[in-house]
């Protein structure tokens, strides 16, 4: 088991583009750490640098508190699962899984034991004689995991391993993968652009945009206490509403945004009132979304399908948000007000809000 750490890690591909920009990151032992960001944000490059497939332009990488910058991938004691699974097409499943062990010159009997053990854990013991092209997407993914497992690595690096599965299979694979990681307890760094995967699986999430860390935190912190407007709008679907108010942006989640009775009965001290104009409803089965505008800015409310709401298409209705659900951001910098203030006193305890 090991802790992965990067110190001011940067990667520059050409003169203009900073793919990864001075990233400081430290996992805890056995953690499931998710790197979340849109495509092209540098998260895969970061993972490849940790794996040794991409030399960093500057900065340090430590695995188990040992500097590994100059170690080739094979010496880093890591296992990686690629988005494509990268199974060796000319080898059987057995030989695919045994491949890393052959590199370690494990003797034949021990090798067979280990391959069988890994295959059993992942439920692919019946497929050992097949070639990768004879497997389904889900089976390929398990073979790739089994091959990663037999190495007994210090760290797992997973690069969007679920993106090639269909939606139904993905949900169950998410659960299995998380269970698998909990069982073996190996530090895992998981790259994805899918916030549902990130929220559901990660012990902590690192939100990355344009090569920089926007926030590090538990899924709850990321969702409820976003460090800036980028995180607030990137995580959550639909994203957080941001209503301008002087030099501030007032943010609140669509599910905290609820309709008020016409008589104003549900008003109270802790309630902030808005008028949603040009409203229109979207029926989604278990819930519905009400789109509209507040102070000329688009806003969304999410509520149960049976929530009482009397608004015609294109009409207006009174809506409210509880004060504790409001998040105030600086309009200029996009940074969260309270956190920005806290950061001046002492380093933010949970967030990696960039000190800019």
């Amino acid at each position, binding site marked *: 088991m090991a802790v992965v750490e990067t110190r001011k890690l940067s990667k520059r591909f050409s003169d203009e583009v900073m793919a990864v920009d001075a990233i400081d990151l430290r996992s805890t032992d056995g953690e499931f750490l998710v790197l979340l960001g849109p495509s092209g944000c540098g998260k895969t490059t970061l993972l490849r640098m940790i794996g*040794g*497939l991409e030399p960093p332009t500057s900065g340090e990488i430590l695995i188990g508190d040992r500097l590994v910058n100059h170690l080739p991938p*094979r010496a880093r004691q890591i296992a*990686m699962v*690629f988005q494509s699974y*990268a199974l*060796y*097409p000319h080898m059987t499943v057995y030989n695919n899984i045994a491949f*890393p062990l052959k590199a370690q010159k494990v003797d034949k009997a021990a090798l067979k034991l280990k391959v069988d053990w890994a295959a059993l854990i992942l439920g692919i013991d019946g497929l050992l004689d097949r070639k990768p092209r004879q497997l389904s997407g889900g089976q390929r993914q398990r073979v790739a995991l089994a091959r990663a497992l037999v190495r007994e690595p210090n760290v797992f690096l997973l690069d969007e391993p679920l993106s090639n599965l269909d939606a139904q299979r993905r949900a169950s694979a998410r659960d299995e993968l998380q269970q698998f990681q909990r069982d073996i307890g190996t530090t895992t760094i998981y790259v994805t652009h899918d916030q549902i995967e990130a929220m559901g699986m990660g012990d902590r999430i690192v939100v990355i945009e344009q090569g920089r860390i926007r926030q590090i935190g538990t899924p709850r912190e990321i969702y409820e206490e976003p460090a800036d407007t980028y995180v607030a709008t990137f995580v959550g679907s639909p994203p957080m509403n941001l209503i301008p108010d002087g030099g501030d942006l007032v943010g609140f989640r669509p599910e905290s945004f609820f309709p008020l009775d016409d008589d104003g009965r549900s008003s109270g001290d802790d309630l902030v009132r808005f008028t949603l104009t040009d409203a229109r409803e979207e029926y989604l089965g278990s819930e519905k979304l009400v789109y509209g505008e507040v102070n000329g800015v688009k806003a969304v409310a999410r509520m149960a399908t049976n929530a009482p709401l009397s608004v015609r298409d294109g009409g207006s209705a009174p809506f409210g948000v509880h004060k504790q659900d409001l998040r105030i951001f600086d309009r200029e910098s996009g940074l969260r007000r309270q956190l920005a203030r806290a950061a001046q006193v002492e380093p933010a305890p949970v967030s990696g809000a960039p000190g800019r």
Partner: protein
Amino acid sequence: MATSTDSAPRRITAPVPSAAHAPIDETEGSGKYRARRIGGRVVLYAVATFFSLFAALPFAWMVLTVFKADSDLYRANNNPFIYNDPPTLANLDLLWNETNYRTFILNTFIVAMLVVLITVIIVVPAAYSLTRLAGRWGESLGILIFLVYLVPPTLLFIPLTGVVADLGLQNSRWSMVLVYPTFTIPFCTWLLMGFFKSVPWDIEEQAMIDGYTRLGAIWRTVLPVSVPGILTVVIFSFMLTMHEFVYALAFVQSSGNKTVSVGVFTELIRGDVYFWQALMAAAALVAFPVALLYNYFLDRFIAGFTLGAVKG
């Protein structure tokens, strides 16, 4: 395609008074489709037959001529497509026993094998580094290397004669072993680059993570996956070597060191006398094995060329 677009509007606009008419309409339509399909097949086979005959004719002519007696071949008012005199094996006997044909074949084979070996040894690392390590310049460099192949040997043999002479290789098979890679390597590098572009490179990186050095990863993952491409290189350099003429003619004079392409030409055309039947036999004996081999790997050749064409 044409059939469906032709008939679709008709079926949409056709008045359908009752549901019962619909199946009748369908059968009528499908009969028409069937006639068109058969018609299409007939045209296809007619065209294919024509071109097959067109391509096979030289071979048939070659084989037919091999067994003809002189008296038959040279009489102008004979029907050229049949044996007017009884077929004879004398021409084969002339080729096999009274010329150095067997030596020519052996020389061709030795030279071709060595050239193939040199080509593969150089081309695999070259194509790998151009596709994988040279970044965005690799592509342009590959095309530049291919351009070298387009310089005609009729131009190059003059300076190369100097090189061969300086190395003391005149009139030796080694001159060909030295010079032939100058055209097999550029062509095959470009060819193999096309193949390498289709290799899923993740597997190489995966192997490096799984505990192998870069060379170990290439050996265990990239090369096994590229076997079709490497086979194409082997066959192509073999064939380019076999039919090469200009360099062989310029560098080798003594009969014992000649290859088939030059040896047959110099030994079976004596002054203005052409030993046509023996010439045909000499050509057929080497052409057929190569044609069969080529046919066997045809799909892979096409794959190789289209890969190169689409991405290169």
